[in-house]
């Protein structure tokens, strides 16, 4: 597998109709796929924060960032270095859990400190909130038991706080 080229952009935008389409359009017209996207209002309800994970090399990304900043409704934009930011993602999964398998699935849930949201005769629905890496690991370990349905939110992120005095 080639070196991952994921970049995380955090874009502060005016909370208005059509802004997400403007942002997404800049990626679409260049043929770049958005890996994940999370949007929600900030504490200031006139603003929303969009967290975009995109798989693209650095040079075109630099151009996209500049083009994004040209959008009138984009207030600020920065690229988050994973080493200098806190990232979280939420996963919901319905996984097969029949008979003796159920105990092993529950064990995984316990190890990862995931939550059980719903229980059926043949499957259970679990949720996990954590770093994208942890969520990836959990998904991978659940997979052999048979994932019926899976939904991930896409990551949200904020820069780490400066601790220098």
């Amino acid at each position, binding site marked *: 597998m080639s070196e991952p080229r994921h970049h995380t952009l955090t874009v502060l*935008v005016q909370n208005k109709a059509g802004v997400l389409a403007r942002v997404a359009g800049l990626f679409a017209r260049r043929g770049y796929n958005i890996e994940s996207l999370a949007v929600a209002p900030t504490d200031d309800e006139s603003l929303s924060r969009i967290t975009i994970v995109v798989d693209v090399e650095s040079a075109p990304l630099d151009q996209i960032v500049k083009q994004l900043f040209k*959008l009138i*409704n984009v207030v600020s934009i920065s690229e988050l270095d994973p080493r200098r930011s806190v990232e979280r993602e939420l996963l919901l999964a319905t996984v097969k859990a029949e008979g003796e398998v159920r105990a092993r699935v529950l064990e995984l849930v316990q190890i990862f400190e995931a939550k059980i949201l719903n229980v059926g005769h043949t499957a259970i629905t679990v949720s996990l909130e954590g770093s994208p890496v942890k969520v990836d690991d959990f998904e991978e370990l659940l997979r052999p038991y048979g994932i019926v349905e899976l939904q991930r939110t896409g990551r949200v992120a904020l820069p780490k706080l400066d601790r220098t005095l």
Partner: protein
Amino acid sequence: MLMNGGQALIKSLEMEGVEVIFGLPGGAILPVYDPIIDSPIRHILVRHEQGAGHMAEGYAHATGRPGVAMVTSGPAATNIVTPLCDAYMDSVPMVVITGQVATAAIGTDAFQECDTVGITRSVTKHNELVTEAADIPRVIREAFHIATTGRPGPVLVDIPKDIVDPMNPRSAMEWYWPETVDLPGYQPVTHGDPAAIRAAADLILESRRPVFYVGGGVLKARAAEALHELVGLTRIHVVTTLMARGAFPDSHPLALGMPGMHGTYTAITSMQEADLLVALGSRFDDRVTGKLDGFAPDAKIIHVDIDPAELGKVRRPDVGIVGDCRLVIEELAAVLRERGGLEAQPDRSEWKSRISGWQERFPLTYEPSEPGEALKPQYVLEQLRDSASTPSDTIVVSGVGQHQMWTSQYWGFDHPYTWVNSGGLGTMGFSVPAAIGAKVGKPDRTVWAVDGDGCFQMTAQELVTAAAERIPVKVAILNNAYLGMVRQWQEMFYEERYSEVYLSPDLPDYKMWAEAMGCVGMRVESPEEVPAAIEKANSINDRPVVIDFRTDAREKVFPMVPAGATNSQVVVAESQQGLPR
């Protein structure tokens, strides 16, 4: 004061100082057309919405003020997409108002509904669907602010019918005019970074082979005077791109003309051999650079642009300066003056003599026509340019293709804002409506549209508008009966296999067509007739004039950098092909 949204819209345009709207009414925009009757704003009724858009562009090019077009929803909105894209590519300040179906009907596939903001999102600097009458003054104020500041561009405002229709209670609003614009995400940088300007001065003072690579941004920034001063201070040669013709006088000894695919040999070659390119409001367009990895291989780059996204988009600058061209040029000139002005510039006599060698060996040239043969297009342009009846500050407007390149090459622009054309998008049919817009903006100036026969057939109906509104533009059709530029490529690169390029010189009959549209029509077939026809056209000022010049279809535009070649592989005119480079 209580108003309806339609009245507020027109009042807002008045507050913005709008003197003319180019437009065509229809169902959704109908209520806005009623208050126009009582407004001092002139409305020019076009025959096709594309015409309204290009007229607004021509007006903006000639005056520097934002052009305004107003059309209805659906097909009218889609018809104005081409001018929006044209204005976006060439950074033309323009505000387009479109009607939209009533808010409750949006999304129901209502009659003449289309997703105008969706369709135009990628061809506007900004667009906005207004959903409340009370928002109209604010949105119009913002639209003009955005269109005219920073890197100029088109802004579209989409207005649903219910918020402007006095019969609908949703249109009622209390009038106000916002004193300020509140756009937290939009603060264009205008002054250059002083450290970068000092670094640019250092590069200039070290350079032995510098060239000023001047683009349309210099005109947009009203920086022609500042540029003149900077050139006086440095004695550095200047190339002006297709979008910058007139920003620096072609008659100046340091002017090298236009660079690029059909630029002068000297402009192309001096950039190619330069050790420093000072890009001022230019954007390293592919038509200028040729094959990018062979472009100006030894040159360091100083790149000045108001749009940060231009710096490094195509070629990474050694010094990038974000800012308004006029301010940055003035700031750069001040630093260079401090450093000793002209005396501090290094000796560049060797470079100058190389440049004058190229100029002597490779001037623009063409073979005059033999008696009895069709006119040479270059000859027509020279006659038009040199006629005593053509004022020196004539505004020249072109379409797209061979005639555009010849006009840019041969006109000799000595004044800013006298050249109007479609550079980035290359929109055939631009010239007739754009010339009308330019003439409306500058009624005291002579305006000549130089058009091709292919282009003319795309938008000629706007001459009806010009005749009806008494806008006396003049049109020179260089009629070679072909889509000439395509023909040239088929001749040179497709083994003379001419596919779908023949148009016929007589169909339509351009003289009769012009007369049918209320213009004076003329036909000119031989060189002796040319001066008199031009003089006659220049003497007519009560209606538009169209001259059908029958030109030689075999004539090609040279020099030419073939697509995919580097600028070092420029093809010169046949008579110059054996000369040492």
